[in-house]
């Protein structure tokens, strides 16, 4: 296996963890998605010509894999049997106020539909509307509309959070 591929993935694995975290509820499912994404990156690597930044290529493949990862009916049934307690969006790191806020953000994003999750991820990673449009496959204007709605949702949830806390 090419060492440059492994180094590239090793350096950018935080991106893959973030995507796994917002697209899957349990630790087990996140690990599965992480593996799927790395495998798809490996499949796609020969076609990567370096025309875009490596991180852009990783986001493109990872988001596409996460959105397209349809579960088999058997797995969907198994997941319906899972108790709510197994749903865990927190990162495995020490608890702190900042960490709680990060967990809150991930919980809010997790309620979005898969396409909104992809758009908000790219937006928060400072991608331009043009780049987001290319990765998602919609027009720049449509990206603008979607991001505006997503911002409204985030503000609404932040306001609710503020009300709940006091």
């Amino acid at each position, binding site marked *: 296996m090419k060492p440059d591929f492994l180094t590239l993935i*090793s350096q950018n694995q935080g991106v893959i963890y973030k995507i796994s975290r917002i697209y899957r509820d349990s630790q087990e499912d996140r690990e599965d998605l992480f593996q*799927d994404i790395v495998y798809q990156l490996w499949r796609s690597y020969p076609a990567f010509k370096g025309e875009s930044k490596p991180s852009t290529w990783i986001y493109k493949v990872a988001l596409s894999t996460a959105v397209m990862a349809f579960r088999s009916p058997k797995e969907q049934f198994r997941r319906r049997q899972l108790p709510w307690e197994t749903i865990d969006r927190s990162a495995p790191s020490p608890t702190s106020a900042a960490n709680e806020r990060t967990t809150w953000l991930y919980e809010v994003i997790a309620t979005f539909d898969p396409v909104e999750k992809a758009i908000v991820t790219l937006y928060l990673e400072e991608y331009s509307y043009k780049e987001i449009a290319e990765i998602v496959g919609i027009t720049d204007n449509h990206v603008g509309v979607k991001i505006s709605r997503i911002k409204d949702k*985030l503000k609404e949830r932040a306001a609710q959070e503020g009300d709940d806390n006091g």
Partner: protein
Amino acid sequence: MDDIKALWRQGDASGPAKTPSELEAMVRMKSRATFLRTSRKLIIESLAFGVVLFACLTGLASPLSQSEATGLLIAVVTFGIVNNLVLLRVARPAPPERSIRDALTQAAASFRTQKWVGALFTVLYFATLFFVLLAHVQFTSLKILETGLIVAGSIGVRLWFETQLWNRQIREVDSLLGSLGAS
């Protein structure tokens, strides 16, 4: 939104860092698992479906000679393998580096094709068996009716299950395409 972006950046190290050798082992394991799953599906489905159906139909039509039975079994299994190979060809996913819309569009088309190809093969499969048996075995009218009903029932049950499975997948992908809106 700046505070949200700052929060987002804090989520970077949200999993145990894997070394290059661990990543390599993961890719190799996933690749092997994918290959094994596809092969298993191809072989087990083809064999199981063929053998069960063969057993049911020969049970009804007892006077099959050894060579007829062998020929029928080979035909049934071959048919199952061809069916699964066609479905695997149709089910090939879009290259992962394409846009999300392209991947979804290809998945929607692929699911629809798989649904119809699957249905076509199911009908052809049962119909062929029915006519092969009819041509080689001395059936009474009652036996023909009985076999015909079993064949029709089997087609119906299998088509119903397959259609439900594909419709669920198609609805899911259509809903995602709908959320992307017009291009």
